[in-house]
Structures are given as C-alpha cells and as structure tokens.
C-alpha cells in the first residue's frame, strides 16, 4: 500500500480534512484539560506529536514481527516507552512545563489518537508513510490545541502566552478557564468546523464516520449510524 498514493497526502490529511480533534473527535481529554493556557497547550501538542511520530514508525517497522493477537498490548508497550522518554526529557529541560501538564503528561499513553493511528494506519502501512501520517496528525492535534488554548486564555485570563492584553485583562471571564468553559469552547469550535465543512464539500458527510480510526470495529458504523 501507500506507494502509489503520494506521501504528501498522508501528511496533509491529518491537518485539516481528518483533523483528529475537530473532525474525528479523538484525544478529547487532553484537549479540554491542558488548554487553559497557550503555552501548556502547545507543550502538550508537541509532546504528543513526538510520541506519535516515534510510535507510528516503530510500530510500522515491527508490524511483521508482532503477532496479530497480542498487537494491542504490544502497541501500548511501545507507546508507553516513548511517553516515558518524552516525560524524562521534559522533566530535565522544561520543568515548568512538566508542572503545568502534571498527570496529563503520562496520560499521553492513553490518548486515543496515538493508539487509533497505530491500529488503523501504522499496522497497515510502510514506515515512511506512517511517520508522515503521525506528523500530520500531530500537527493537526497541536493546531487544534493551540486555537483552543488561545481562545480560553485570551477570554478567561486576559493574556496570551502570559502577556496581558490591555482591555480584556481588567475583567477577564474566569469561567472560560474553568471546566465548563472548556466544554463550551470545544463545542463552539466543532460547530464552526461543521459549518465550514458542510458548504464546499458536500460529500464530506459520507466520509465523516468512515474516516474515524475506529471505524473498522465500530458497531455504530455497521448499523449505519453516525458516530458519537
């Protein structure tokens, strides 16, 4: 597979068309939890991207060796190893980021984006295609986190990357930093993505659920229902 399809497509699809957060609705937990500020959102995005690229390439390279029956535990072990490495690097070089992300950093292991891509893409495609797929998905994830983080920090704290913004910072809307604000901004962003997607590409509606990395074993898809 993969040889005939241009590799660049594997890279770009994750950023917009199949954006893991806004279109596939994967990895929602970190999306909501670490986006109270732009810098922690960006840090989480970069850490997850690094893990995704490494785990996708290694899983793809090892795919002839891993027996089908134990593939999920094998994937999780590989992912956990890379997460531990990233965690150690962040602890050593960016301790403030480590503090900001807290328990959500080791929780990258259970980020559905990473296992989802391993299961649906890396286990079926070559190393180069898998690495690019991981990079694209990672950048799409980082971009979504960055947008969410910007909105929440600007409205909720009146600052951006810690720099206070004149008018808003005098009376920020605290609720945007609290949990309800996270759900609300996420809902609104998804509505905006729906609005943008529905007009120019009408066929998109059919792809929507089939594009989900879990579509292979999704009961709802077999029943002809929409996901979620």
């Amino acid at each position: 597979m993969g040889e005939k399809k241009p590799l660049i497509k594997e890279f770009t699809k994750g950023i917009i068309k199949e954006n893991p957060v806004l279109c596939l609705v994967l990895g929602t937990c970190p999306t909501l939890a670490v986006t109270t500020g732009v810098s922690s959102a960006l840090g989480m995005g970069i850490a997850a991207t690094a893990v995704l690229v490494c785990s996708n390439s290694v899983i793809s390279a090892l795919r002839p060796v891993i027996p089908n029956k134990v593939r999920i535990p094998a994937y999780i072990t590989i992912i956990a190893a890379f997460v531990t490495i990233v965690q150690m690097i962040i602890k050593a070089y960016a301790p403030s980021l480590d503090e900001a992300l807290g328990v959500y950093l080791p929780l990258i292991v259970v980020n559905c984006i990473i296992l989802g891509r391993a299961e649906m893409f890396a286990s079926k495609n070559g190393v180069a295609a898998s690495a690019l797929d991981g990079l694209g998905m990672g950048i799409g994830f980082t971009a979504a986190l960055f947008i969410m983080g910007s909105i929440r920090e600007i409205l909720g704290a009146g600052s951006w990357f810690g720099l206070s913004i004149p008018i808003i910072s005098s009376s920020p809307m605290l609720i945007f930093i609290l949990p309800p604000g996270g759900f609300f901004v996420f809902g609104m962003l998804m509505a905006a993505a729906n609005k943008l997607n529905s007009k120019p590409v009408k066929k998109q509606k059919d792809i929507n659920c089939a594009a989900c990395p879990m579509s292979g074993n999704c009961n709802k898809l077999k029943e002809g229902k929409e996901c979620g």
Partner: protein
Amino acid sequence: MSLTQLAGIFLAAILTENYILCKFFGICPFLGVSKKLDTALGMSLAVTFVMVLSTAVTWPIYTYILVPKELDYLQTLVFILVIAGLVQLVEIILKKYMPSLYNALGIYLPLITTNCAVLGVTMLVLDKGAQDPSFGYIASLVNAFGAGVGFLVAMVMFAGVRERLESCNIPESLQGLPITLVSASLVACSFLGFNGIVDGLLK
C-alpha cells in the same frame, strides 16, 4: 484514617473532583456511550470495577516493588500493562456470562484500557499519597471507588440530558456533538456549585 475522613474522600471524589466534569478524564466514553441510559450504566459499572481493581493492584506494585528498587520511572509502562490485562479479563468474563451487555458496550470495552480515567486514578492517588503520608492503601481504594461512582453519576445524569436533547430543535451546525458539548458545559457549571460542600459537611 478515621471513617469521617474516608467519607470525605469518597464524597470529594464524586462531587468536587468529579473525574469527567472537573478533571476531564474519560471524555471519550462520556460522549460516546451516554446516549442511552442502559449503556451508560453498564459502561460506568465496568469502569468503576476496573478502576478499583487496578488501583488495588498498582498501589502495592508501586509502593513495594518499584520505589524500593528505584524503578519508579517505569510507572507509566507498568501501570498501563496491568490495566490492559485487567480489562482483557473483564472482557472475557462479560463475553462469556453477559453477552448482551458485551454487545451493547462493543467498541468501548477494549477502549477502557485507553480510558484516561482509569490510568489517571491510579496515578493521582499516588500523587496524593506522596503529598500526605496518611493517604494510604485504604484511602486510595476509597478514592478510586468514589471516582468510579462519580463517573457513573455524571454519565447517568448526562444520559438523561441527552435523551431530552433528541426532541429539541437545534440549529443545523450545532447538531450532534457540538450541542452535546455545550450541554456538558452547563452540567459542569452545576458541579462547580459543589465547591467547598464536602468540607462544609464534615467539619
């Protein structure tokens, strides 16, 4: 640890530290299976069970094996493998004895492994134990059980909200997940109101 303190931990885990609505753990199943009341109930019972079981196993492993051998950097790796094994066990048991529930939970059952709530609770209780030495094994188990019940409360409550949403007239681009998230935001708002209630009740 006195019984009052344990009750406080239990109530706090349900109300003020609700794993879904305040800590954003386990959002995927929260959005995925909260459409119907019975699947929501089955899923949260499975999660609660796995949570308590995995805390019961990982706590001694961490305290008595990893820390003395200075292997605590392996925490993530060891914990996720233990949880994966336990989930497999629950899956086999359900498949054999409760096939209808197994079919209803479908895709989400193996995904309990990747449910951040389960891994999150095993790690957070250790963090709490590191800050406060009196927070021992029993307190950790109570906390894990409370987190599971909190998960259940949020799921069941939200399933009720979603059933009502179905009959509403919703603007086109908000249909589906966006309106679900907006209503989740309102439910989370109501949980903010519990801040401080646990301390008030028990002191």
